[in-house]
């Protein structure tokens, strides 16, 4: 096959492919998709395995993407190296890039550069105070280790029956505002920010990907598998039942009013969980306002582990043995009684 023929076939293939998928795109217009990237990227099977053996999925779920905080950012806003279609392999996205959105309070282009500054000085920064790489620096998180595409979690203020868009509220917005796109985005954005942007269970699961990893916990000399031990507490149990009001990791480990990216080590005097500050964590007006600072003295991350928390271990051990040692024999006796009732005349061996 010569090259000219190959080119022709290539054109036809690519063109036909674009045509094949174009009709459905027209039905679901996508505000930020100026480059019409979804022509190809709306296909779930658009994928490959890369040279490192990782699965690369190029599918964008349009309906989910439109419910995310980046819905108004056009694809090229993040994938800045893509300037032609079809494009070559895209470079890794730099989350600190300035996108086309204008931050309204400063009227400058929006970027996440501040987050990088916060992270650098936080307990999750890859470098230490004098700028050297921390030990096992590859273990420290980058943006995508904690964040996938953030999705809106709108609140409903109408009757407070359920979270989600309140049609009644939208109706009030429409009194003054005319564009539904704007109303929808603004409502979603503001009400999502009025509460946790992720459910406490999701937050715990996210932290647990590293903090429950036994090898990572050991490598860094951490005292606990933090999310596992959180799950053993009342707060953790409530989070498992999807309670939105219980504190998750961020509520205790970040100073109120600061970015979650400013999380500090418990050894840092400025940290919310430093020995001198942690009493205040429980006693905030949102949690236990009249609680004594001593409330925070209990072992929040105690595990049922002889090495880590011997006192709690033996205490729990005693009650476990007491419970099991009472109930299991009781159940055993009931079972044997039932067997006798089932076989009233059965004997082992011959009766004398």
């Amino acid at each position, binding site marked *: 096959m010569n090259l000219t*023929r*190959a*080119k*022709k*076939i*290539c*054109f*036809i293939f690519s*063109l*036909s492919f674009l*045509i*094949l*998928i174009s*009709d*459905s795109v027209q039905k679901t217009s996508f505000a930020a998709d100026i480059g019409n990237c979804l022509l*190809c990227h*709306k*296909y779930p*099977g*658009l*994928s*490959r*395995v890369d040279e*490192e*053996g*990782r699965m690369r*999925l*190029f599918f964008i779920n349009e309906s*989910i993407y439109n419910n*995310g905080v980046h819905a108004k950012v056009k694809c090229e806003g993040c994938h800045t190296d893509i300037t*032609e*279609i079809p494009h070559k392999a895209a470079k890794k*996205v730099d989350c600190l890039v300035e996108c086309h959105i204008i931050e309204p309070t400063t009227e400058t282009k929006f970027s996440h550069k501040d987050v990088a500054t916060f992270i650098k000085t936080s307990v999750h920064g890859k470098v230490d105070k004098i700028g050297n790489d921390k030990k096992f620096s590859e273990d420290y998180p980058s943006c*995508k280790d904690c*964040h*996938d*595409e953030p*999705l*809106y979690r*709108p*609140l409903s203020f109408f009757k407070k029956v*359920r979270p*989600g*868009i309140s049609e009644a509220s939208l109706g009030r917005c429409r009194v003054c505002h005319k564009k539904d796109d704007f109303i929808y985005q603004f409502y979603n954005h503001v009400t999502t920010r009025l509460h946790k942007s*992720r*459910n406490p*269970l999701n937050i715990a699961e996210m932290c647990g990907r590293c903090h429950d990893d*036994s*090898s990572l916990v*050991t*490598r860094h000399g951490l005292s606990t598998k933090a999310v596992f031990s959180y799950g053993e507490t009342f707060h953790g149990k409530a989070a498992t039942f999807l309670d939105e009001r219980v504190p998750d990791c961020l509520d205790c480990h970040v100073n109120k009013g600061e970015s979650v990216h400013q999380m500090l080590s418990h050894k840092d005097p400025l940290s919310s969980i430093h020995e001198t500050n942690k009493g205040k964590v429980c006693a905030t007006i949102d949690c236990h306002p009249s609680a004594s600072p001593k409330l925070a003295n209990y072992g929040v991350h105690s595990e049922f582990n002889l*090495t880590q928390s011997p006192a709690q271990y033996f205490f729990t051990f005693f009650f476990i*043995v007491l*419970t*099991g040692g009472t*109930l*299991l024999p009781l*159940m055993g006796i009931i*079972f044997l009684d039932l067997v006798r009732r*089932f076989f009233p005349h059965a004997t082992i061996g011959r009766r004398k």
Partner: protein
Amino acid sequence: MKNFFFKIYMLVFMALVVFFMVIIWKVTFAHILHEYHERHKTQEITKFKEQREQKPDKTKFEKVILESEERVKNYLGYRILEEVRIKGHFHHIGFDIGPDNRSYCIKCHGDMPHDAVKELRAFLNMHAFFVGCETCHVKLGDSNKTGVFKWYDRTTGEIVASPVKRGSPGSFKAKIIPFEKSGGAIQRVDSEERINFSLEYKQNEKTLSEGQKSRAKKLIHQIVSKQPYICEDCHQKERPLLPLENIGYPRERIDSITSTEVVGMIKNYTKFYMPKMLLPGDEAKKQ
């Protein structure tokens, strides 16, 4: 009769007691045992800490394959979005299609088999999502060609009605498979006989000699054509390979797929990137 119901009652009661015994065991003594094993596991990790620092953290297989995917639930309040989480993947997938249980090709070649042509591989994998491998890679001779293509369900493998009008493009839970003539009747190319042969080979692979392996592979790939069908075999107006109308494509979609008018438009698209897509793998690599 009364006695019979009494026995049933006793059996249910006994089952219930055993059930509670298991639960009590799990939350009491099993919990202690679990802690004991976990503690020892941690101690072992600590013990080998220094060695770990020198060695790669985990074997590539563990790290790349076993840890690469997990299922997550995102609790959004108004809905729960459950999906596969691919490590390092930013955008939500929100889409579950399930494995193709019928295809015997993907048992060896995987779900994303196309890799050779850099510029095309993702597009070909995209097509492989709803087009059976045999559709492009098996060229039937005149004696057994039927021109019949049908959809099969990915999960059950059964022939099903066309999903084209129901699903969004490319997201069908079914794939296209060609039919061939065999002994006077027509049968699907992925016949039970061929599937069983390849599965048996896979089961016995370790016990076979190198020569036997080569022979088995040769037989399995006997129907595979050296040159697969290419894009324009389907994407053409005159005689497209796939009988698009018969497999359920509506007229407007067929016109889109086979349209030639737009070809001219694309030729004028000056910024269109021209990959060396149709050169055979080795030649493409040289360039």
